Every structure is written in structure tokens, then in C-alpha cells.
């Protein structure tokens, strides 16, 4: 028997189940289909001309809004892939940006410098990124815990140096490398076709969520959860922790590389800032804010983080902020200051992230409802 049981599904709080048994509400019946509903809404969103002033600058189907949404979706998928390492297996990798960058730069270089068509370039870049993750994982996983974090960080730094120093004139150095659109299918080129890129990003997110869901449910996924909870115990059961961790690391690297290939198309090129360790750190922030080890938490965290990161910049230059005194308005105009502070607060006060918010609120509501009855 290689199957390992893990406490992956937390039992719903007793108060909630009692309430559900009493009244099988419409909400309880709809709830399992909620992701599907959201997906359908997301698919047909580009057909809407709705204006949401304050939330988006243009109409929902304007290219600017769609591109922002597409980037948010990509990072939702990236965070979900990173969670496979951090939340599900308990590996703290600080080098995830490397595999994402491998996807972005791999696709870009193969199309722009080597002149390959997209359908060859993207799979090659993804396979290359996956192999890279496998090789680096094989070395880095000889260490555990914090040392592993440092080693992955160091390897990612090599990627950043390689890109910035521009060996062989491939990466364009500090300037970045704009994508040569001549080799692309015409449906993916031009401002009018942003909607296709949006759908592509959505498809990527769906694929990542599906893969992570399947892996977590499989026997391998249970071993990963076991590694997170107690690695020695998995070893005692006769399973090799190294191999399972390498599988998770390689898979997460491959998913990140795929995200990079799509991201390259959306932003139309590659720039060196995506190789920085800051990107990995923000992935970590996304996962922790969303709720590590949950299905939707990291996705929500990634989407929300990217959205705030983009929108806080325009908030930072808005008039409302200028009215504040300088010692308040200056820090608030820095998105990273706001997000970093929120992150620290989240570590202290919301350890489960956004995903734990709903059960907590239910608990609070129930205790408030039960409160007055307790005296008698």
C-alpha cells in the first residue's frame, strides 16, 4: 500500500453543517457550480461594454482593461502553480521567477532571434523551462528548508545576471527584447485582438487550476501533503521524499514556463525585471494573501495582487492622495509599500489568507447569532 492518508479536507465547522442540514438553501445548491459560473462570466466578459469607473479605466472590452485582466489571470495561474510547491508540499522556493522568465525569454528568443513559428517556439520554451527546473531541482533539493530557499534564490540570480549582461546579444540586456510579431498568427497580433490573448490567459489559468487539482487529488498529491506535514514519516513509510519533491518542483517549473510563454504574447516581449527575485517574492505574497494550500486562494491572491499593483500606481498619482500631507501621500503612492504592509498584517492576523476569510466570517456570524441565546 503506497497510499498515504492526509488531513487535506478540513471538516466544516459543526455549526455550519447543522445550519445546512436545517435549510438546504439555494446557495448551498448553487455553490458547487460557482467556479463554472465564474468561468462562463469570465469567458463572455469581453462582450460587455460596461463601464466600471474607479475599478477600470475604460470599458470592460477596451484593450487596456482586457490586457490588465489577462496579466492578472496569468499571475493567478502562476500563484496557483507556485502554491503546488509552497502550500501543498511545503517547499519554500525563492527562485520561481527563473522558470517563468525561461518561458518568456525562451519564447521571445526562439521567435525573434531564431525565427521559429509560435507553435514550435512556445512548446520548445516550455519543455526547456521544465528541463531547467528538473536539473536545478535535482541539485537544490539536496538541501532542505531555509538552505533550499537560499540555493534556489542563488540560481535564479544567475538567470537574472545572464539576462541583464546579455551574453551573445540574445536577450537585449537592460532594454529587454520586443517580440517580433511577423512570426505570429495574425489573430494574436494587434490591439484589436487583445481579446484573443485574454482568452488565452484564461485558458492557461483553467489548465493550471485543473492540473493542480488533479495532482493534489492523486496518490502523488497525498504524498506531497504528507511531505509538508512530516517529511520523516514519509521516509519511514518507504517513499523517497527527494523524488516526490523533484516531481513537484519540475511540474511547478513547467507550469511557470507555460505561463511565461503566454505572458510573452500578452505584453509583446520580455523585459529583465521579470527575472528579479522580487517577482518570486511577490508570488509568495500572492499565495500567502490568498491562502496557501487551498484551491482558489492562490488564484484570487494572484489576480488581486496584480490588479492592485497596477491600479495603485494610478491611485498614487490621483488627486485624492495629493490632498493628504506628504508623509502619508508619499508612501501610499508606492504600491509595494501598501502591498508589503498588507502582507505583514496578513501574516499576523489572517494566517489562512483570503480563503480562510469565509469560514471565519461564518463562524463569527454563527457565534453572534447564538450569543444572545446562551444565557438561558
Amino acid at each position, binding site marked *: 500500500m503506497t497510499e498515504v492518508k492526509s488531513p487535506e479536507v478540513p471538516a466544516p465547522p459543526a455549526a455550519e453543517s447543522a445550519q445546512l442540514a436545517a435549510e438546504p438553501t439555494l446557495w448551498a445548491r448553487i455553490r458547487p457550480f460557482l467556479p463554472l459560473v465564474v468561468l462562463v462570466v469570465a469567458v463572455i466578459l469581453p462582450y460587455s461594454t460596461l463601464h466600471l469607473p474607479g475599478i477600470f479605466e475604460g470599458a470592460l472590452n477596451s484593450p487596456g482593461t482586457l490586457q490588465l485582466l489577462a496579466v492578472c489571470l496569468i499571475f493567478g495561474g502562476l500563484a496557483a502553480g507556485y502554491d503546488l510547491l509552497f502550500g501543498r508540499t511545503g517547499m519554500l522556493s525563492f527562485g520561481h521567477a527563473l522558470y517563468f522568465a525561461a518561458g518568456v525569454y525562451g519564447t521571445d528568443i526562439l521567435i525573434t532571434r531564431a525565427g521559429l513559428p509560435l507553435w514550435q517556439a512556445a512548446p520548445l520554451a516550455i519543455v526547456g523551462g521544465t528541463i531547467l527546473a528538473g536539473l536545478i531541482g535535482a541539485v537544490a533539493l539536496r538541501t532542505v528548508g*531555509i538552505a533550499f530557499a537560499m540555493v534556489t534564490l542563488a540560481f535564479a540570480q544567475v538567470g537574472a545576471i545572464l539576462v541583464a549582461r546579455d551574453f551573445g546579444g540574445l536577450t537585449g540586456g537592460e532594454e529587454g527584447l520586443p517580440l517580433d510579431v511577423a512570426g505570429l498568427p495574425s489573430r494574436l497580433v494587434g490591439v484589436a485582438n487583445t481579446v484573443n490573448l485574454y482568452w488565452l490567459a484564461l485558458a492557461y489559468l483553467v489548465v493550471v487550476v485543473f492540473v493542480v487539482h488533479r495532482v493534489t487529488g492523486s496518490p502523488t498529491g497525498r504524498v506531497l501533503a504528507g511531505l509538508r506535514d512530516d517529511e520523516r514519516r514519509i521516509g519511514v513509510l518507504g517513499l523517497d521524499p527527494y523524488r516526490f519533491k523533484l516531481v513537484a518542483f519540475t511540474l511547478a517549473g513547467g507550469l511557470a514556463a507555460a505561463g511565461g510563454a503566454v505572458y510573452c504574447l500578452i505584453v509583446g516581449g520580455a523585459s529583465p525585471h521579470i527575472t528579479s527575485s*522580487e517577482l518570486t*517574492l511577490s508570488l509568495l505574497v500572492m499565495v500567502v494573501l490568498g491562502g496557501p494550500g487551498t484551491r482558489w486562494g492562490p488564484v484570487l491572491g494572484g489576480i488581486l495582487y496584480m490588479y492592485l499593483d497596477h491600479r495603485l500606481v494610478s491611485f498614487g498619482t490621483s488627486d485624492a492622495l495629493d490632498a493628504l500631507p506628504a508623509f502619508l501621500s508619499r*508612501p501610499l503612492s*508606492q504600491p509595494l*509599500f501598501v*502591498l*508589503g504592509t498588507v502582507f505583514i498584517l496578513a*501574516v499576523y492576523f489572517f*494566517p489562512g489568507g483570503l480563503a480562510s476569510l469565509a469560514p471565519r466570517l461564518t463562524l463569527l456570524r454563527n457565534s453572534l447569532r447564538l450569543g444572545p441565546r446562551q444565557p438561558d
Partner: protein
Amino acid sequence: MDTVILLTLTGLGLAALYFLVASGLSLVFGLADVLNFAHGLFLGFGAYATWWAAGNLPGAGSDGFGFVVAVAFGVAAGTLMAVLVELVLIRPLYSRTIEQVLVTVGLSLAGVALLQATWGADARPFPRPEWTRQVTTILGAQVPNGGLLLIVAAALVLGAILAFLRWTRYGLIIRAGVENREMVTALGIDVRKAFTLVFAIGGAAAALAGALGSVYFGTVSPQQGGSLLIFAFIVVVIGGMGSVVGSAYAAVAVGLLQQFVNYYGTSGLGDICVVALLAVVLLLRPQGIAGKVATA
């Protein structure tokens, strides 16, 4: 020959900078198991505090004794900040390693953004004494004085930390704590006081690195700490976590390797060689040069 001496001395200057950052990191990690991402922030904060003091603090200036006062102010500010971070943010999360790392990550993001918000993202010219801009001729090689200053400072800090660890009661507690924290606690010693102390030492060394590194580079910028921090991490891993002497050896190896390969090979190749060295050390000797021992 001149070139070799010049490269050796500038490499040692770089090594001194790495050592100043890595010694604190290594002690903090060895004792409290905290991987401190905010260490780069201490460095940046110390550098900016020195820069501010040189321009604004009465009695401080950019030359002579005034410069010493400015650096002392910067180091004091960095120390104070490190102590505050430990007391307010790290201590409540005692023995929850991952959460501690997360908090320092958040702090490094927010802190650098705050530096950027206050003093702008661009590098600013750093006020430095006239003599640090000049060169000294050693065996025919013209070595920048800023680098020599770093080497002297790092040697002094190394000596001071070793003396402190060797001959004082708190040094003894720290050495024992690195080796076996539970045992120290079981003997009725409050090891958390030693945590605060180690953070203070690390913060002071990092702030000194920030101030003297800015003298060496001639500018100060918010991102300075972050780029140094990664190499400091590498130095800590190669040197063995918790070992100050190991950090010193590793810093020298990393600094010299980087300087020589960057000069004789392509620029940037040295940085990659450093990571290759890290991979080799990990494969052959995963616990680092010195292992988990506080002194040699």
C-alpha cells in the same frame, strides 16, 4: 603583477563588504533560525541615515571627524531599527520559522518602497571625505582608499565579534545557543535576549556596510541592499550557517573569485562562477565550510 595586486585588494574590499552583511545574517540564522530578508533594508537604512546625518546633523559632516560622527549615527540608526524589528515583528512569531521569513520578506518590500518614497528611486551622490576618493600605491598598484577602508573596517568587526563571542558571558550564550538552543533554554537562560543582541550586532554591521559601501561606490540608492543581500546569502551558505569565521573565509573566496573572473573573463561571468562554487560546495559539503559552529 600590478593588476594581480590591484584585483586582489579590490576583491578583498568586495569580500569585506560581503562579510559585513553576511556575519550578521549568519549569526541570526545560526541562533534564531531566521532567514532575514530585511537585512538588506538595515543596510540601506544605515546608508541613508549616514547620508542624512552628513548633511543635516549638527557636528556631522562629510569630512574628518564630522564624517565619523555621521557614520556612527548611521550605525546607531541601523542598530536601533534591527532591535525594533526583532522586538516588534520577529519575537511574537518565535519558533515559527516560515512566518518569520514571510514577515521579513514583507518588511524588505515595504521598507525599500518607503526609502524610495522618501528619497526617490534614483541613486544620490554620497558625501565622502576627500581622501577616500584618492588612491594609495601599494607595490605598484593604485588601490582606491574606499576599498582599503572597507578591508580595515571588516577586519576590525571580525576581531570585535570574535572577541565578544570568546570572552563575554553573552558571547558564550550565543555560541551555546547556536550549537543547541534547547539545552541553553533548559539551563534557565532566556535565549531570546541573545536573539535581540544578535539582531543588534547584525544590524550594526549591515549599517556599517551600507555607510562604507556607499563611500566606496560614491552613491546611495534604495536597491543597494537587495543586490548585496543575495551574494551575502551565498556567502552564508558556503561559509556554514552560524559561523562567523566561516563567513569570513567564504566572503574572501567569493570576493576574489568574482573580481578575478570578472576581469579576466567576460563581465558577469564572475557572478556565475560564484553560484557554481555554491553548487559545488553544496554537493560536496552540504553543511558549508564550517558547519554549524559559532566560532572556529
